[in-house]
């Protein structure tokens, strides 16, 4: 009896505590606009995720210093997405329990796909920032997700156009190494389409598991195949490994690639990297707004921003702009705002906009090559950024897959 009483008292006490605590929680939620942010911080994309966090945190600080969104401060709750399954679990929890109004982030295409499924089920907005697989904005697209980074096809097109210009495409024999997951296979598909359309020949392709660190057996196979050009469809720090070991073995064939993030290029070091690669942004881009961002970032972190820092920074700025303009965090209102192809300043020469029918941010991309030895100002400067594609006289959309090549239909 006594025990029962004590339990009752405890229960009552707990209930009171909950009752007392609740208004405080509710009030806190009303004050802040919470945004759930997921990005890989470990594994082969972890280094990129670290830059992603620095970028979005910097935008958060700037927005809040300028008075927040609709007078309310933004709060970014950022977590390691780990793997596709964990990413989905965390996304669901952020929406359901943590009070996140929208979700943002990701670099890994497979994790982005599972988060997209979660937001579709919950009918909430997700700004998919850094994953590049075509399938995400193609056959797997949904109306709750907007994609910021350039898709595989755009990367292939921006490097491919440079190769065509340099006479390195027609009748050339290509050997590709492809990361064995959603993104790599997607890149290979886009590359094959480009080769077919422009007279390149694919003579060999090897699938490479994402845990491979030693490429020597693959390099021997490349040597035996004697291609004209070697082409990397790898992702994350695997590109770095390949580049370093390619330089180690000193194979004579030129190497190019359809995906390389600047953090991975920096890690390869000067003297190892060669060839032509695509990028979505680079810190030497000669646009005043971009230079101002780079200067502020260097001042804060002592190193220049990588492309994932830039993209997260402009993404949160776009999201804040959308909330301010619509005076709302409502999913439908935000979707409508993005879908009317509002122009956003993304610190590039030309403004970008989300294409209404596949929710892809349409923007400039750049090929880059490697500076001559001794021309780099510092260890981050050895890449030479090429001219933006498409050229100023062409519409931005031309490097993106047109409607008849994109399977996206929003349900």
């Amino acid at each position, binding site marked *: 009896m006594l025990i029962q009483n004590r339990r009752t008292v405890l229960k009552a006490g707990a209930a009171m505590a909950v009752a007392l605590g609740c208004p405080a929680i509710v009030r806190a939620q009303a004050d802040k606009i919470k945004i759930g942010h997921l990005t890989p911080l470990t594994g082969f994309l972890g280094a990129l995720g*670290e830059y992603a966090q620095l970028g979005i945190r910097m935008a958060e600080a700037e927005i809040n210093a300028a008075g927040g969104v609709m007078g309310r401060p933004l709060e970014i709750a950022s977590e390691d997405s780990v793997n596709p399954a964990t990413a989905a679990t965390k996304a669901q929890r952020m929406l359901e329990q943590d009070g996140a109004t929208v979700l943002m982030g990701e670099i890994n295409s497979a994790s982005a796909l599972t988060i997209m499924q979660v937001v579709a089920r919950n009918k909430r907005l997700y700004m998919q920032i850094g994953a590049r697989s075509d399938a995400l904005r193609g056959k797997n697209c949904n109306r709750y997700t907007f994609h910021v980074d350039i898709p595989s096809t755009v990367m292939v097109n921006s490097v491919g156009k440079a190769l065509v210009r340099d006479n390195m495409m027609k009748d050339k024999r290509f050997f590709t190494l492809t990361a064995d997951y959603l993104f790599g296979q997607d890149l290979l598909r886009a590359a094959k389409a480009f080769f077919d359309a422009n007279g390149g020949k694919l003579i060999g392709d090897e699938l490479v598991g994402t*845990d491979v660190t030693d490429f*020597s057996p693959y390099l021997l196979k490349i*040597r*035996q195949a004697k291609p004209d050009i070697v082409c990397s469809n790898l992702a994350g720090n695997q590109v770095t490994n390949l580049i*370093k070991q390619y330089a*180690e*073995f*000193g194979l004579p064939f030129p190497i190019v690639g359809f995906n390389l993030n600047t953090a991975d290029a920096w890690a390869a070091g000067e003297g190892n990297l060669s060839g032509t690669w695509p990028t979505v942004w680079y810190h030497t881009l000669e646009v005043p707004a971009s230079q101002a961002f780079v200067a502020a970032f260097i001042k804060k972190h002592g190193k220049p921003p990588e492309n994932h820092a830039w993209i997260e920074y402009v993404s949160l700025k776009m999201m804040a702009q959308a909330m301010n303009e619509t005076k709302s965090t409502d999913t439908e209102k935000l979707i409508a705002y993005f879908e009317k192809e509002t122009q956003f300043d993304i610190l590039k020469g030309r403004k970008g906009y989300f294409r209404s029918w596949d929710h892809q941010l349409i923007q400039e991309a750049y090929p880059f090559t490697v500076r001559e030895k001794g021309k780099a100002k510092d260890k981050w400067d050895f890449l030479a950024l090429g001219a933006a594609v498409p050229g100023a006289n062409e519409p931005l959309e031309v490097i993106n897959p047109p409607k008849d090549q994109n399977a996206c239909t929003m349900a």
Partner: protein
Amino acid sequence: MFLLEQVVNGLVLGGYYLLIALGLSLIFSVGGIVNLAHGAFYALGAYASVEITKYLGFGPAVVLSPVAVGMLGIVFERFILRRFYTADPILSLLVTFGLAMVTEQLIRIAWGAAPLSASMPPSLKGAIFVGDFLFSRYRLMLLAVVAVVLLGVWLLLHKTSFGRVVRAGIQRPDMVAALGIRLQPYMTAVVVLGVGMAAMGGAFFAPITIVHPAMGAEIITVAFVVVVIGGLGSFWGVVLAALLVGVVRGITIHFAPAAGEASIYVLMFLVLLLRPRGLLGERIEKFE
């Protein structure tokens, strides 16, 4: 012919696995401890060599980095491992696993998650042809280093009084104790040797792979597979297994590239099925 090239390349790669696996095997044989933190010492070796290279160059770095990490090994053995030799194996598993995670995070705090760039001296870059075989100059040098280290360790274990005590300690620690020999200083030396070799592996592999916080976790699995296939307590078993793993991986990549990394686990599975003690594993009383 092409296949033969893969076999030879696999042997070279096996030599590198050997540097890490041999230390792991030694520490297990003598102390009965499965050192899950072994990969952490490999990573520390790589980071230390990158730092030392900045000031003194590549040559001194690959010598000094294993020495420095070996010193850490003394602390590791004296203050951590020593408490767990006679304890329930699960405790040493937990403590070394924890240490591996702590080290990885410390590296992340100290150097950041972004990989460091490490370059090899230009004189070692490029390939040389032996007949029709293509060899990376750097890896040939690495193979020579591994051969020297291997010979040194074998001589140490089999031709010195130090080695006799260690080998006796593996088989009959109680008997060694009855003869009035304290095994503890020998254990410290074995751990220093083991983690020093791991650090050396890290230092030599930094220029051809990437130096990043999780590199230790990447290598530890392969090292384990090698030790398990080779058989515990067997010097030549580990050597044989390391070469076998390198060759099997190379051949698999030649025929079915996507299965490359899985092949070594299939190999381990088969070996365990047919010879649970490993290829050349000895009967060790204290583990039976």
